[in-house]
């Protein structure tokens, strides 16, 4: 079993101190749930997300497992990206955004008082819809995240770190001879893999991906999907995708969100079903899921 967990996490503000990289060890037997599954790496409990007075997402309770790919699917406006961004407090960057309920990461609420959102984002990396490498060299793109994380190693240690991240992101062979060239000189698919390498260089154990293939061609998309399947051996991946076939191809579990109209005519996202992917795409439990995946939709 390759599951990894942290015994304790320090997500509090650490001025000037070296950020901790995850101390990992196998989950103890007593941590296993009654169903034999390891405890979730991230768990939301009755989570609501508001933008000002508008409730964007209502009462989401989800448990994401170790070493699995979980897909969030649903129509536009169902709140799946909002949910994803809530998992590493990325929504905090939106001034009106507010999250209630709990988001437990290794058993600690990331929205608790005193938790530093930046520390959260170091542990829970994110890859965005559009590749967004910095206008710096490929080498610097990778080292940046590690430096933010307090990396102060020697040049050869930095070289190793960069190579390791690029190897894991399956792009090393393509860029090893041009590490000092701009990250922006790469193709779209390569840029996205560079961004994945940058995300994992901070040694997170969860990687969030927000439609990471939506701007890529089918071949580049397949390479990212292959990479995800490889990466799940070391990380838990949560992906938002509009592409149901992509969710079906890569994910172990899929959450379907739908839009509910309230009495004020506001559209609030709700979790309808979270099931093993093979079950959700062949015999979904809920009629709303069935309607969505067969293209019958209100």
């Amino acid at each position, binding site marked *: 079993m390759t599951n990894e967990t942290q015994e304790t996490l320090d997500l509090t503000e650490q001025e000037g101190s070296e950020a901790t990289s995850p101390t990992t060890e196998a989950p103890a037997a007593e941590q296993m749930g009654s169903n034999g599954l390891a405890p979730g790496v991230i768990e939301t409990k009755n989570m609501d997300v508001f933008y000002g007075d508008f409730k964007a997402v209502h009462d989401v309770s989800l448990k994401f497992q170790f070493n699995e790919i979980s897909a969030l699917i649903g129509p536009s406006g169902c709140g799946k990206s909002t949910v994803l961004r809530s998992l590493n407090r990325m929504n905090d960057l939106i001034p009106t955004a507010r999250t209630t309920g709990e988001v437990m990461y290794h058993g600690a609420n990331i929205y608790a008082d005193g938790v530093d959102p930046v520390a959260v984002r170091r542990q829970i990396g994110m890859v965005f819809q559009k590749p967004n490498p910095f206008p710096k060299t490929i080498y610097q793109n990778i080292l940046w995240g590690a430096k933010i994380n307090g990396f102060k190693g020697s040049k050869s240690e930095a070289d190793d770190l960069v190579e390791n991240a690029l190897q894991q992101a399956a792009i090393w062979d393509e860029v090893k001879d041009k590490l000092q060239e701009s990250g922006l000189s790469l193709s779209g698919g390569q840029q996205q893999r560079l961004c994945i390498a940058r995300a994992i260089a901070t040694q997170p154990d969860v990687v969030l991906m927000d439609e990471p293939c939506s701007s890529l061609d089918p071949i580049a998309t397949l390479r990212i999907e292959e990479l995800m399947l490889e990466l799940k051996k070391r990380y838990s991946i949560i992906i938002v995708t509009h592409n149901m076939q992509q969710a079906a191809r890569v994910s172990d579990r899929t959450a379907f969100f739908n839009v509910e*109209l309230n009495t004020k005519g506001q559209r609030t996202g709700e979790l309808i079903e979270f099931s093993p992917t093979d079950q959700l*795409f*062949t015999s979904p439990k809920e009629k*709303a899921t069935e309607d969505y*995946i*067969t293209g*019958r*939709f209100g």
Partner: protein
Amino acid sequence: MTETRDTNIHFHAELEALEHKVLSMVDRAEQMVEMAVQSVTTGDQETATKVIHLDDEMDKTYFGVHRDWTNLMARQQPLGPDLRKMTVLLTLNSTFERMGDQCVNIAKIAQFNEGLPSVERINDQVREMKDLVRPMIRTAIEAYVRQDLDEARLLPAMDQPVDRLNANMYKETVAVASNPQLLEWAAKMLMVSRALERIGDQAVDFAEQTAYLLTGERAEFDEEGMAGSADGEN
């Protein structure tokens, strides 16, 4: 929620057309059962030939369904109940094609048996089996079209008398064994009985596919038509 609308209307129209094509095969198979048994119990060679020609048409439809199915799957990659229907249609396409083949087997025995003496008691038993098997096919069709799980579950019970008659046919054959010409004829009728028994089993398979379509659970029926042993996992 607002009223549900179909945003995949072209695919669903194509799926429906494919479904009609597959169901046309079982309609034809039911007709072929009647004709094949008539030819083998009366020696009607013209009808036997018609059955063989109908099967040629059936084979063309079978290949056409395969072609359309592959195209539809490649283009649409359906999910959920649409995916289940696609898998069911592919299975039924083979099931109905094999029903047609069994009818051809019977028709060819009609050709082989031409001029041989016969025993009316055995002919009656074959007709009786046909009269049991045709309603099985009809019931399976209706269960599918009406999406009626309870009706689908009737099939195993309907199949039991067919199995009993098939088992009895061996005794009937042995009973005429002292006459070499009659034995030659009766041995072939034993194969007719076996073909009808297989068609009955295929009607049960059809009903099991309907149950899978409706429930999403794959299982063979037990004698009461309830889900018995599941296939696949472990």
